[in-house]
């Protein structure tokens, strides 16, 4: 279920590893699987036509011998009857199921029209409204909002970027790095306003909590996502900010009452991609990761574990993401959230050419680099992958 990066990766893996039975891929969007990261980059900037997003050619999809059902949303799951219910009333029976239904954007209250940026159609709709002199209000200065603001400035739009936190991205990458990244907005003429809360979207802009109207011709709301799990309500699976899975990416049944013993498994329901909340044993933490690379890797892992139940492997990746803003390439490996300490280990923050390391407990939890050569980053990624201690990995200098 879900015909984006994770679902595609899963069906390709099943075929590659020899599964030749019936295989159904269901997606709620009308488009065949496409790539989302360029939506807030090349597509919004009109640098690419949207056919460049297509993840696989028609021939490649045909070769997978799929029952491909697009424009078809899932509405329910009968776990014991092993059937998925679709919006058009049909039922799809299964022996194994991979849930990859993704997330959808959070929205804000109010009567005014606001764009979101998740699907190809979202990106094309916003693109059509941007240009020289247009006034765009972006709510949320996370990676998506920051990328959209950067593109809109490049197109000549006047951009107001509103962020509730005192430092954009501070919770994700630390305040010092967040300040460095957001300084680029100011240099490029974005009106960045931090510590402001938006109450609602109105005609002609957004209304702040203190009553002020911030005017704009267009409003983009980029305030995070919600996992698409409503169709799993009452299914018997555990849902809690995502579909809850064990370290094998197998969904976990709801266990009645508080018991410490592991809940019984589902007999072949796995999850992958943005919707999956699983236990990553490498970090000993429950994670739900909305990154492009995780979708592909987890789709592959879930498919393998479903296909080879006697040889299952825990899914223990080093998360990776990148972001492009004003020509800066930001790359991060590891699990940065909830870090205890940040240290500059290479380069210089002020020059926007640096690599910072993140400590959690006594371990190196992750690194983030801007403008660094790939080989410099790779060594640090390896240090994260082997769970190096902070003391071994980071010299006792440069602590922020």
């Amino acid at each position, binding site marked *: 279920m879900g015909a984006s990066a994770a679902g595609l*990766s899963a069906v*390709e*893996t099943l075929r*590659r590893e020899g599964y030749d039975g019936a295989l159904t891929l269901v997606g709620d969007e009308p488009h065949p699987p496409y*790539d989302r*990261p360029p939506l807030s980059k090349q597509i919004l900037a009109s640098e690419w036509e949207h056919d*460049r997003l297509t*993840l*696989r050619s028609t021939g490649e999809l045909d070769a997978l011998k799929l029952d491909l059902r697009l424009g078809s949303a899932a509405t329910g799951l009968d776990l014991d009857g092993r059937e998925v219910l679709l919006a058009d009333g049909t039922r799809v029976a299964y022996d194994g199921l991979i849930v990859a239904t993704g997330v959808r954007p959070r929205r804000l209250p109010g009567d005014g029209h606001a764009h979101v940026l998740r699907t190809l159609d979202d990106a094309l709709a916003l693109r059509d409204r941007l240009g020289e002199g247009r006034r765009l209000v972006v709510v949320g200065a996370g990676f998506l909002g920051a990328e959209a603001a950067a593109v809109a400035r490049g197109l000549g739009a006047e951009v107001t970027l509103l962020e509730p936190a005192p430092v954009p991205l501070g919770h994700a990458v630390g305040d010092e790095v967040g300040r460095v990244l957001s300084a680029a907005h100011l240099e490029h003429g974005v009106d960045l306003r931090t510590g402001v809360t938006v109450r609602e979207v109105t005609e002609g802009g957004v209304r702040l909590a203190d009553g002020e109207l911030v005017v704009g011709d267009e409003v983009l709301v980029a305030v995070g996502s919600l996992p698409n799990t409503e169709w799993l309500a009452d299914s018997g699976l555990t849902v809690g900010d995502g579909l809850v899975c064990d370290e094998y990416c197998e969904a976990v049944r709801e266990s009645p009452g508080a018991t410490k013993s592991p809940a019984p498994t589902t007999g072949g329901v796995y999850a992958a991609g943005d919707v999956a909340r699983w236990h990553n044993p490498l970090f000993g933490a429950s994670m739900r990761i909305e990154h*492009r*690379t995780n979708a*592909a*890797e987890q789709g*592959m892992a879930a498919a393998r574990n479903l296909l080879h139940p006697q040889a299952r492997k825990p899914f223990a990746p080093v998360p*990776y993401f*990148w972001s*492009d803003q004003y020509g800066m*390439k930001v*790359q991060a490996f590891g699990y940065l959230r909830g870090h205890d300490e940040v240290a500059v280990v290479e380069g210089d923050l002020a020059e926007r050419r640096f690599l910072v390391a993140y400590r959690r407990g006594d371990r190196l939890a992750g690194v983030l680099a801007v403008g660094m*050569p*790939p*080989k410099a*980053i*790779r060594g640090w*990624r390896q240090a994260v992958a082997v769970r190096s201690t902070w003391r071994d990995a980071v010299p006792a200098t440069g602590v922020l």
Partner: protein
Amino acid sequence: MRVELDEPKCVAAGQCVMASPEVFDQRDDDGVAILLEEQPADELLDGVREAVAICPAAAIRLVDQ
């Protein structure tokens, strides 16, 4: 089998190098992927398939030839 790399699509993640270091490398200046072996030996193909699957930009293809 022949490997095709759509260079303008590459986002310099370096996932291909980790999956298949014999076939891929990255440019030092911008991290864009470099193809070391256009027609890799059979024993390298599993790694290449892994790279195709995890490339976050869908910039790698493995084609029959």
